[in-house]
């Protein structure tokens, strides 16, 4: 019988049914970091258990790591403590740890694909919701809680409920200056922040087919913001080419065999789905958020919606969102003043993101009253010195930092102050997300953040950088 990718991966990794009606599923790759895993090692210790398969778990440090000075001990004693606990636990249990000086450190969802740990047809889990990113490679990648991190450490398996699968076909061709980030914000705007509850999202269609792996990761990354437990894209030639030659990918004949196996996981052409949604990609504009959830988004040329046109609790929530954001109904979003510009995160902090911005910003300067920071997602994507990426950003007035999550959630020193407005390439515009309880976040693509930084206000990157003509 024809199957979709989710069904194939599930069948291959199924250990068996559990008493409560759930299923036990084998996890091929377990990624851990300092925020959600030290407690799991504590639980193991308290329960007298050991790590079942240390070779399938890999650790990095990303959330709390400073991006200005990464020498130990870190200036924040609590950050240092978390780092020390993870370091000790990984050493004790024989788990490979990509430390800052290892040359491979970075945000967990940037590091996995970069090294080639992330591969098609496998199951991946990590105590972090944006694990959905890895689905870009055609695998089932799930964010889990700390008790489940404990479960995976102890058993290499998870108790799971099967998901339904919704195929989202993005048809047509993106207009010049429209990016993967705009596609994902647009999808969430249409399907809602909880439209995906109970589903895995399969992204497909012409727009997705021509995307690079980095762009696919941006789309899958935000599946979780649409309520889906995971998102994936069927593996194809683009996937295999990306993986070829990566450090943790087999080489030579091993690679050829792997490609045959990987290709077999792609959804069969006549596979069935629990739901299918078709979205016209040609109609997508550069998209930005106006509110406090990623679904409260609009095209750059649109006006902020009026709560008066909504009903009931929705109306209250829209009103609250506008009050928090200090924005007015029916005003254009374009021209909204910004104080901070942040390019980074596991959504849009990859090498290609910085390359795309670098290609546009030469000769431009960040507006004098804007604080602009660029934070690479990993040591490796900051590495190509010969491209002079850092210098291009610095010349334009950006600070160029060391790798980490940084202002995506502000667990280190990189924070908004007071009610500053931040044009951000990250994934969450929740109240207080960027480190100030009154700080305001406007989500957008990296090129749109660059445009906002230069204009000092939310702007259309296509106009600022004349993208329509050049692409």
């Amino acid at each position, binding site marked *: 019988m024809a199957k979709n990718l989710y069904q194939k991966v599930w069948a291959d*990794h*199924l*250990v*068996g049914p*559990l*008493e*409560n009606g*759930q299923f*036990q599923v084998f996890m091929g790759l377990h990624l851990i970091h300092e*925020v*959600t895993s*030290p*407690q799991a090692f*504590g639980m193991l210790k308290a329960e007298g*258990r050991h790590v079942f398969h240390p*070779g*399938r778990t*890999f650790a990095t440090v990303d*959330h709390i790591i400073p991006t200005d000075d990464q020498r130990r001990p870190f200036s924040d004693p*609590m950050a240092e*403590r*978390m780092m020390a*606990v993870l370091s000790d636990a990984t050493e004790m249990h024989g788990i*490979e740890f990509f430390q800052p000086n290892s040359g491979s450190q970075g945000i967990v969802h940037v590091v996995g694909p970069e090294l080639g*740990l992330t*591969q098609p047809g*496998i199951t991946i889990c990590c105590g*972090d*919701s944006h694990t959905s990113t890895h689905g870009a490679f055609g695998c089932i990648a799930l*964010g*889990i*809680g*700390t*008790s*489940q991190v*404990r*479960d995976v450490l*102890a*058993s*290499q*398996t*998870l*108790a799971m409920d099967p998901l339904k699968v919704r195929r989202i076909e993005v048809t047509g061709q993106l207009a010049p200056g429209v990016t993967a980030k705009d596609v994902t914000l647009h999808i969430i705007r249409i399907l809602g*922040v*909880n439209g995906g*509850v109970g589903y895995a999202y399969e992204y497909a269609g012409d727009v997705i087919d021509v995307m690079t792996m980095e762009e696919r990761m941006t789309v899958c990354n935000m599946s979780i913001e649409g*309520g889906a*437990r995971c998102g994936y894209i069927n593996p194809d030639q683009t996937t295999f080419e990306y993986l070829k030659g990566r450090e*943790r*990918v087999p080489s030579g004949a091993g690679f050829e065999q792997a490609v045959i196996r990987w290709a077999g996981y792609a959804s069969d052409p006549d596979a069935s789905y629990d739901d299918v949604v078709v979205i016209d990609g040609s109609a997508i504009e550069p998209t930005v958020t106006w509110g406090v959830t990623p679904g409260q988004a609009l095209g750059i040329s649109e006006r902020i919606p009026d709560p008066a046109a909504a009903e009931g609790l929705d109306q209250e*929530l829209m009103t609250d969102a506008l009050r928090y954001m200090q924005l007015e109904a029916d005003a254009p979003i374009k021209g909204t003043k910004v104080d901070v510009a942040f390019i980074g995160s596991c959504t849009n902090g990859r090498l290609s993101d910085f390359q795309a911005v670098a290609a546009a910003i030469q000769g431009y300067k960040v507006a004098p009253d804007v604080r602009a920071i660029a934070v690479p997602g990993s040591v490796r994507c900051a590495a190509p010195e010969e491209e002079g990426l850092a210098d291009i950003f610095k010349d334009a007035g950006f600070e160029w930092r060391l790798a980490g999550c940084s202002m995506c*959630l*502000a*667990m280190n020193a990189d924070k908004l102050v007071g009610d500053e407005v931040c044009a951000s390439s990250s994934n969450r515009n*929740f*109240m*207080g997300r960027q*480190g100030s*309880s*009154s700080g305001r976040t406007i989500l957008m693509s990296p090129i749109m953040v660059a445009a906002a930084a230069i204009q000092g206000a939310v702007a259309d990157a296509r106009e600022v950088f004349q993208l329509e003509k050049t692409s």
Partner: protein
Amino acid sequence: MNDLVKRSGRGIYVQGNDIDTDRIIPARFLKCVTFDELGPALFYDERFDTQDVSKGHILDAPAHQGASVMISDANFGCGSSREHAPQALQKFGFEVIIAESFAEIFQGNCTTLGMPCLVMDKAQRKALASLVGHHPDAEFLIDLQAQTLTFANERFSFTMKDSSREAFLTGRYDPLDELLVAHEAIQAVAARLHYSDQSG
């Protein structure tokens, strides 16, 4: 009478759709290596201003101190997978959460911690929220087997995710022992999958 299937306690209504885990526990409180100290940080930025002065949030209303049943609205617990959020709710004193719907990872985390997530429709929740406001001292009686809730002489019904309800009915909400029993089956699955060795 707080066994696994029957729960009781006083209630509180915390209004809002899409209450995300960043609001439940702001990121700066995630700097910890155990979950023990998280209770006081629950909803911190909604309850206190930047000088740590109370903003008069419902959670701090004297009438609702000691409440153990929280009622909220749609998509409760969305956002990050951080178990810090359910841990903070539990350490604060909550034992049951009622909402229109729950984010999936959050719901799973709550189950593992022994904290049932009850799904209740809008009309009933509205009635319940208003009753709780008028009777902060009254006790909820919750029966997970019958999926009924009694409060101030009124009866309400709810649903639960099947596997989660089953977990409470069988007392197996922490799955780890059962997962470990399958030791040989796990090895068999590992052996039949053609994973490459990825160690560096």
